[in-house]
């Protein structure tokens, strides 16, 4: 089954485009700081100077090099997304697998918890927490993960329920495999495609949230972010800065999120009809939020 999926994916143009773009941005995010010609916090340059060789994208109103800012911001956004996406994935998979496997009371508890979390709008909580407590971005990423795992766990749980009835799993139980052993060796590896879908979706949402929160000014002013760059650049709309200060972060942000959207959509198209189950509402909900 995996082989066929991989082959389909490799043929899918959206997937390839998305993946290569993501790869590009990931590499850029990782090596960004070494590429940046200046420390983005260094405000000693001539403010609002136009692009030149020394400052590829010019200088912002605070005297900081925009190109360096861009690289650091990109990294912050990507890392935030990855952190939140992986955390949501881990939590969602573990809860979903255990819940589906164990059934009964733990299952009921977790699923009710998931329903409650689904009903709470993530962005509202994030804004309130960010504004009042001003925690570090990693904490916010984890809080976001904690609110978005439900959809992953529901998908995993549905799949687990299906797998529970399959022959090889039943055989493993007969042979005396413990719960954790079965989950680890028999269930988890089967659901690999679901991980990809879940991870892509949650990372996308996390990056989107990070940009929104930064745009609203809810992070530490010293932290560089694409959303923050956009909001500052917008303030100087009357000057001729749109093409070197406003456009680069917009393009970067769009391409990064586009890349991961391509991956997510192509994954769903390839894998969806065969594997995706769960109620209609949750499927739509996951794609909506």
């Amino acid at each position, binding site marked *: 089954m995996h082989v066929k999926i991989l082959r389909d994916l490799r043929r899918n143009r959206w997937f390839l485009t998305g993946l290569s773009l993501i790869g590009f941005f990931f590499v850029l995010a990782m090596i960004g700081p070494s590429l940046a010609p200046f420390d983005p916090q260094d405000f000693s340059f001539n403010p609002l100077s136009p692009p030149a060789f020394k400052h590829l994208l010019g200088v912002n109103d605070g005297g900081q090099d925009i190109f360096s800012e861009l690289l650091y911001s990109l990294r912050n956004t990507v890392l935030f997304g990855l952190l939140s996406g992986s955390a949501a994935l881990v939590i969602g998979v573990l809860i979903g697998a255990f819940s589906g496997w164990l059934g009964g009371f733990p299952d009921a508890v977790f699923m009710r918890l998931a329903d*409650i979390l689904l*009903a*709470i709008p993530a962005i*509202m909580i994030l*804004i309130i927490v960010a504004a009042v407590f001003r925690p570090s971005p990693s904490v916010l990423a984890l809080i976001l993960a904690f609110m978005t795992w439900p959809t992953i766990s529901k998908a995993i749980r549905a799949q687990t329920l299906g797998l529970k009835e399959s022959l090889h799993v039943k055989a493993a139980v007969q042979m005396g495999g413990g719960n954790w052993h079965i989950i680890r060796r028999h269930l988890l590896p089967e659901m690999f495609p679901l991980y990809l879908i879940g991870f892509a979706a949650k990372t996308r949402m996390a990056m989107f949230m990070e940009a929104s929160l930064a745009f609203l000014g809810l992070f530490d002013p010293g932290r560089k972010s694409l959303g923050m760059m*956009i909001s500052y650049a917008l303030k100087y*709309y009357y000057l001729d800065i*749109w093409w070197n200060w406003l456009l680069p972060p917009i393009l970067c942000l769009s391409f990064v*999120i586009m890349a991961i959207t391509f991956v997510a959509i192509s994954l769903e198209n390839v894998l969806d009809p065969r594997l995706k189950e769960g109620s209609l509402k949750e499927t739509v909900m996951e794609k*909506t939020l």
Partner: protein
Amino acid sequence: MDAVPRKPKPRWLLGVVSFLAAALVMIYLSYALPRILPGDFVTAAYAGSHVTLTAEQEASLQSLYSQDTGFGSYLLRLVTLDWGYSHAFLAPVSELFLGALPWTLLLLGTANLIAMSAGFVTGVEAAWRHGTRTEKGLIAGATVLEGIPEICTGVVLLFIFALKLQWFPAAGAETAYAEGGLFTRVIDVLHHLALPLCTLILAYLPGNFLLTRNSMMMVMKAPYMVTARAKGVPPRRVRYVHAARNALLPVVTRFGLRLAFMITGALVVERINSYPGLGTLLFNAIQSRDLPVIQAVVLFSSLIVLAVILSMEGLYRMIDPRIRHAR
């Protein structure tokens, strides 16, 4: 052998219970928030805000928050619309809330309706033309558009159409104290609504399109479709009456969900365009630590989510006979 088989609990009841629980949790959170926070809450909260409290205001707030009138009476006050008094705006919270609500409804409602109908129609038409260049082009366009976050579309639209070309205003829902008849007022409102509306439509449309198209793809392979075409039913009728109805469900679900999360759904767009809806209200309230307003908005949000999701469950049972007869 089993004992007397019990009647299985209807699945929807569990759903209701979950959401009731969710709503109660939210309400309790908004009630308990001041008490959970450490330290002298009032001074801590107001020290960083734009509002300076007079001695009496501070004292009355302290007493308000320290008195434990209990959760029950809190619930009662909510129902009777006594939501308290905002210290940042010096107005009753319900007034602020009801002043911002129509704008959010206008913006989100219209955007969702247009995105839903346009997305639905284009999705159906695209699925119908499966394999053609048109379909491929539309899908490509939609996928790309889906990948562009609202911030980017919002800022770009604002920048080009409001700031550079000045075809549309950059802020507000209507011109303050404008004089003129009903018609001019309506046009004024629409004029201010245009940009945030377009931003939201561009954000919602591709998703609806793709969703519809995918659902349609699955539906179109069904045998009854072949039957319909063989019968000679006109193409448009086949598309909309026979096929699309079944693809309608996901789209309507999404519409409902977006409405459910309306308060925060358009927050960023409202901020970009300075549109005075509930999102802006919430944001300003958070900045000034205006707790009564925050509590009211959080509350309302949970109640709306609860109401919409419950009614959607009911709606499903009506729309899809299979669900009704499943149990």
